[in-house]
């Protein structure tokens, strides 16, 4: 339950320098630790700024001074021997601080909105052509209207008809919208965990993806992913939805179990019944009977939502459809050990 924080390893993680087990541990930790996630975003932003810095040659005088300093005898006091490196360090920090402040202030505090057809309003004011929207403001489209929102440099959101959408955060580490009703299509090109959409019954967290999301005002909604992954969350419950799959969300219960769009119709209907009956009842028989190999996506998500003996039946069905990896123990899987389930999901994903 409690996992040590990973803030000291974030730079190595983002640079891809860590071995696979450590990287997986960090990813698991980040998925559940808001503090480390925020820090990760900040480090990512910092690294991207550093990578964007132009290379410049140091003046010859500096190198001469460094060489001269290295030839000094050790009889000099320590502060004197290290004065050049210390000066360089101070200068580096000062330059970084100046860059951070100037670039930070240059960070966009609003997004462009373009009305595509019909009438679109930003904060109840009709827009013509291109306008801007800032945190706290609403975008509303009429019943036959649509609009496009440029999410800074990380992506684009198409806003469908009869949609009410609020911008809630524009920060380097967090780009957040609240979808009160209607439909959006998001295409994000940034690394994962920078773009979020809240609906009345779930939050869609971008894991590097393209997706459509619709909801009514009560929170009855549907997520459909076309590229990458989306984490669909509500009060600690999470559904991981890959490309080609959809996931319904309901008021008070949050995201349901994801299913592939080409799954058997009876399986999809049975999932709806299961969600309405708190994942108990005879509909599970239909799901287990009709599941194909790639429907282990659905079965894997059913594990934490069910109790024994249903959970054991689900385990056995997954095992029958796809060999269980040697590092996934039956006992631990049935105990819902997070590491075991994550390893199993990663292995199963090769069949999805």
């Amino acid at each position, binding site marked *: 339950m409690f996992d040590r924080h990973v803030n000291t390893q974030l730079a190595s993680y983002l640079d891809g320098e860590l071995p696979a087990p450590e990287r997986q541990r960090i990813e698991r930790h980040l998925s559940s630790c808001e503090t480390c996630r925020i820090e990760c975003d900040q480090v990512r932003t910092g690294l991207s700024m550093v990578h964007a810095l132009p290379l410049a040659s140091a003046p010859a005088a500096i190198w001469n001074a460094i060489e001269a300093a290295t030839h000094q005898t050790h009889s000099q006091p320590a502060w004197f021997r290290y004065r050049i490196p210390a000066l360089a360090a101070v200068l580096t920090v000062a330059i970084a601080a100046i860059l951070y402040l100037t670039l930070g202030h240059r960070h966009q505090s609003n997004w462009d909105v373009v009305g595509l057809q019909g009438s679109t309003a930003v904060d109840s004011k009709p827009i013509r052509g291109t306008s801007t929207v800032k945190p706290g403001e609403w975008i509303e489209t009429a019943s036959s209207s649509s609009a496009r929102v440029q999410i800074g440099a990380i992506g684009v959101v198409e806003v469908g008809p009869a949609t009410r959408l609020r911008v809630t955060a524009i920060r380097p580490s967090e780009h957040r919208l609240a979808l009160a009703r209607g439909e959006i299509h998001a295409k994000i090109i940034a690394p994962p965990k920078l773009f979020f959409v809240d609906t009345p019954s779930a939050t869609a967290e971008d*894991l*590097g993806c393209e997706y459509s999301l619709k909801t009514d005002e009560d929170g009855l909604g549907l997520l459909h992913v076309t590229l990458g992954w989306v984490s669909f969350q509500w009060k600690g419950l999470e559904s991981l939805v890959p490309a080609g799959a959809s996931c319904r969300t309901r008021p008070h219960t949050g995201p349901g179990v994801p299913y592939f769009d080409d799954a058997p119709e009876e399986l999809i209907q049975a999932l709806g019944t299961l969600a309405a009956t708190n994942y108990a009842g005879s509909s599970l028989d239909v799901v287990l009977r009709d599941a194909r190999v790639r429907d282990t996506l659905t079965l894997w998500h059913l594990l934490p939502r069910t109790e024994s003996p249903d959970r054991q039946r689900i385990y056995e069905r997954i095992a029958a459809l796809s060999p269980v990896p040697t590092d996934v123990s039956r006992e631990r899987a049935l105990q819902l050990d997070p590491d075991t389930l994550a390893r199993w999901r990663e292995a199963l994903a090769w069949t999805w």
Partner: protein
Amino acid sequence: MWRFLIVNVLTLMLAGAEGFTFVLASPVASQQFQFKSATFVFRAEGCDSTAPQITATAEGIVKGERKSVELKVASGPKPGIYAVFQNWPPEGQWLVNLKGACGNMTAGAIVPIGPKGFIRESSKILPRPATDNEIETTLRTQGGKK
């Protein structure tokens, strides 16, 4: 003597069967956002000691004309996982021919491409590079199915 040879050959065949091979999957399997728009991803198995040499070409027939396009095999932060991105025209019938070498071991795969991406069910994993005949046959079969 003959018994010894047969045992050796069988052992080598068995080793080959469990040796260097490709496992194909949809881009979501890689869990790497850089690969999300790939046509497919694959991992190389059974090549622990050496970095495998992997090449890919797209082989196609467009309006009756035979085409061949060299592809770049992309590798991401996770070792041993690769991606193939579409670099061939959208029209016509296409497949991707994967070739791999790991020391003395070889591997190959024929990956037919359909309108919705790679066709997992029709893909062939081979213990060696595909022959020209196998590629032509697969392309003709794809064309016939269309």
